[in-house]
């Protein structure tokens, strides 16, 4: 009898121990499934952001959450033209060197503090320290607060690239309170405080990030256009769920666990289209798929070998493998999208040549003797792996020896930093506001691939220093022609973004990426 009691006691003790453990992650405010009386929007994101500190990272998922909380001094309208956001207007001096930004009156941060020119200056200085584009374009500038409500940026030379850099959404120049920045030092900010339509509430690791409607939000004047104009929080809370498994995102959307889901697999398109509770959207322009050559060392330091590969590429074949159906891709040579004012035709003839004979000829001329080409890629992003497989086949058909090395994404990121380890990797590029922001063109960005062409750098500078759009666009025509001539990167094609919501979600807009302001759940 006694022994049985001991056994029972042990079991009870164990259960108690574990029940205590369960209490560890309690959160009374977490939304319950099916609680439809709440005016909340539940979004399934594809990955966990490294941080929401937008100055610090180029990760897309940081921007997807961050721009609901933070705002930019200037931003872009639906034509990708730079317009004021926190600034009331943009005044440019006649010599094109001084930019004055009077701030809109009466704006407050989420912590109740007034927005002043000091906050803007501190934010822009911090952003310039970390952002590649910020350093490249704004480095020679002086950024000062003329008075409490006016920020002045002075440049030694005129630049058409300054405003687009300030408006560039990814790793964007968002405005935070000065104290928060001072407190952060070299690290990440400890509190996510901005002026946006939503304020940060909580980040439950591996579950969700919650933002709530900011009651004191003051929208910029004018109707919504691109990222500018009217922004209104129509829901009380947004829960950004972090759902890495694509099948779970699809199922969660169909069952109503999520109201909206991003980064859906294109092969679920037909299923979701038939679902009476779901609206599907194909969003563009979103990104383009490219292969990057290691131009610093190895085979492809030789421009002729790069041209040979470019001659062989059948873009249609790659994009079909990547996207499945034609609804999700578009063949286009442009480094900017045709929806943008910058779009030009130069270099078009070098795109999608499908000419293996020419490729073989160029390889022979370049003296290629079967040295191995190393493609590093990852299955973490389906499109990378699929395009790498097609690429391997294409290269083998023109007589190249190819090693395809498949790793997880962090390994690819770390390997690509070493020019001895790879010849080619695949990645995607998002919409740029101004084409000199393209990472792989400017040698001074020192981005993986290390394309270094003094001629290109000079053309980019010419473009940035052009006094007007017309001349800048002329310079860009030369940039794009030189790009297709020297092919540091081969663009395969444009890939659209597949997004879906429940039928009751209204107004979720896509511009550069997804915005959930002006979005309601009824």
């Amino acid at each position, binding site marked *: 009898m006694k022994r049985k009691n001991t056994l029972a006691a042990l079991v009870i003790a164990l259960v108690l121990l574990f029940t205590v453990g369960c*209490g560890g992650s*309690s959160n009374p405010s977490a939304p319950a499934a099916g609680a439809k009386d709440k005016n909340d929007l539940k979004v399934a994101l594809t990955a966990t952001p490294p941080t929401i500190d937008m100055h610090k990272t180029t990760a897309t998922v*940081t921007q997807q959450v961050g721009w609901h909380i933070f705002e930019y001094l200037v931003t872009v309208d639906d034509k990708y033209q730079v317009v004021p956001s926190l600034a009331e207007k943009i005044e440019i001096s006649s010599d094109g060197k001084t930019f004055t930004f009077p701030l809109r009156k009466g704006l407050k941060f989420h912590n109740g503090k007034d927005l002043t020119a000091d906050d803007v200056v501190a934010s822009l200085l911090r952003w310039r320290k970390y952002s590649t584009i910020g350093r490249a374009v704004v480095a020679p500038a002086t950024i000062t607060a003329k008075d409490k409500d006016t920020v002045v940026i002075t440049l030694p030379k005129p630049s058409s690239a300054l405003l687009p850099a300030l408006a560039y959404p990814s790793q964007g120049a968002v405005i935070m309170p000065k104290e928060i920045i001072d407190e952060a030092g070299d690290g990440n900010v400890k509190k996510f405080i901005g002026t946006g339509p939503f304020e940060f509430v909580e980040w439950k690791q591996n579950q969700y990030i919650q933002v709530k409607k900011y009651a004191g939000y003051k929208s910029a004047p004018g109707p919504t256009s691109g990222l500018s104009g009217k922004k209104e929080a129509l829901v009380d809370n947004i829960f950004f769920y972090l759902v890495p498994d694509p*099948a779970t995102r699809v199922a969660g959307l169909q069952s109503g*666990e999520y109201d909206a889901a991003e980064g859906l697999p294109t092969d679920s398109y037909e299923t979701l289209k038939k679902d009476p509770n779901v609206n599907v959207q194909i969003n563009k322009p979103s990104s383009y798929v490219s292969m990057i050559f290691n131009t610093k060392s190895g085979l492809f330091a030789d421009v002729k070998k790069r041209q040979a590969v470019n001659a062989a590429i059948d873009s249609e074949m790659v994009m079909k493998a990547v996207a499945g159906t034609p609804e999700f891709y578009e063949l286009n040579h442009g480094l900017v999208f045709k929806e943008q004012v910058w779009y030009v035709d130069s270099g078009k003839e070098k795109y999608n040549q499908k000419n293996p004979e020419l490729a073989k000829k160029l390889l022979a001329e370049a003296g290629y003797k079967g040295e191995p080409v190393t493609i590093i890629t990852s299955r973490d992003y389906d499109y990378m792996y699929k395009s790498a497989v097609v690429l391997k086949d294409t290269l083998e058909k023109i007589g190249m020896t190819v090693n395809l090395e498949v790793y997880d994404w*962090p390994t690819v990121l770390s390997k690509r930093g070493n020019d001895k380890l790879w010849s080619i990797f695949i*990645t995607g590029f998002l919409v740029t506001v101004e084409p000199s922001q393209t990472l792989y063109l400017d040698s001074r960005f020192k981005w993986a691939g290390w394309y270094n062409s003094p001629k290109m750098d000079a053309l980019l500078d010419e473009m940035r220093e052009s006094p007007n759009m017309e001349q800048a666009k002329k310079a860009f025509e030369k940039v794009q022609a030189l790009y297709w001539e020297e092919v540091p990167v081969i663009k395969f094609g444009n890939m659209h973004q597949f997004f879906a919501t429940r039928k009751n979600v209204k107004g979720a807009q896509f511009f550069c990426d997804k915005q959930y302001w002006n979005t309601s759940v009824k």
Partner: protein
Amino acid sequence: MAKYILKRILYLLPVLAVVAVVDFVIIHLTPGDPAAVILGSDATDMDLAKLREQLGLNLPIYIQFGRWLWGVLHGDLGWSIFMDMSVSTAIWEHLGPTVSLTLLAEVIAIVVALPLGVVAAANRGTWIDQSFMTLALLGISIPSFWIGLNFILLFAVQLNWLPAAGYQPLSNGLVNHLKYLIMPAVSLGIMQGALIARMTRSSLLEVLNENYIRTAEAKGLSRFVIIFKHALRNAFIPILTVIGLTFAVLIGGAVVTETVFNIPGIGKLIVTSVMRRDYAVIQGAILMTAVAYVLINLVIDLMYVLIDPRVRLSK
């Protein structure tokens, strides 16, 4: 007995030392760079190098190990560079879902598997036995994530009875808590249950061949009393071992199931941390799993004594 427990706990130390070293070395030999993950794919080499230095990632590996070990010996598992919290806090926050899921899966497994195994053994060779064991074989062979995905399709997408994924803590109500956990628990429990059922059957069959069972039958005891009073208890030690092992495996985080059902448990924590090369968290979580594994086995060993008085642990 106290001496035995103490001895077993001391045995833990060399085990943990080996785990710590192997764990650290494997993780750091894996290519991959947390700095690149933090800064995103568009970061430049210069920024990456700067951050690596800031995080201490450019130090020689033995110095990194020494620093980490010194911390662990002082009860400090380190700091997560991504979550910006201590590793102990991160593990603690992710422990609740895993423990709930484990307990529920194990309860389901035992409740289904024990009767199944007993009935199969009692009807050895009949169609009942064969069909039960076929079921068990299926249960072992079908991956739990596949079962999980089918459950989601059926119960969440088609019938809309249960949420497709996610987690609600116990503090939000038991019903809510269970609603989110039942599908993953069943899909995990099927596999564990299948193991337990097979072990119950074979262990019981062995005992049923013993002489004392024949004696009991000769005495005219009922089949029920023979099986449950005389046979099962004697057959229970191997069953308990299997239960203990499955429990220990689950506590380490059901990696795939937690991912499919998006449950923020230890398994998910480990996967996310591996994907981001959040070294301190991976090391801490694996160390914690090793400790749990050893402790659970200790508890199981202690239970042997309670079930079978012939077992003497102190020898």
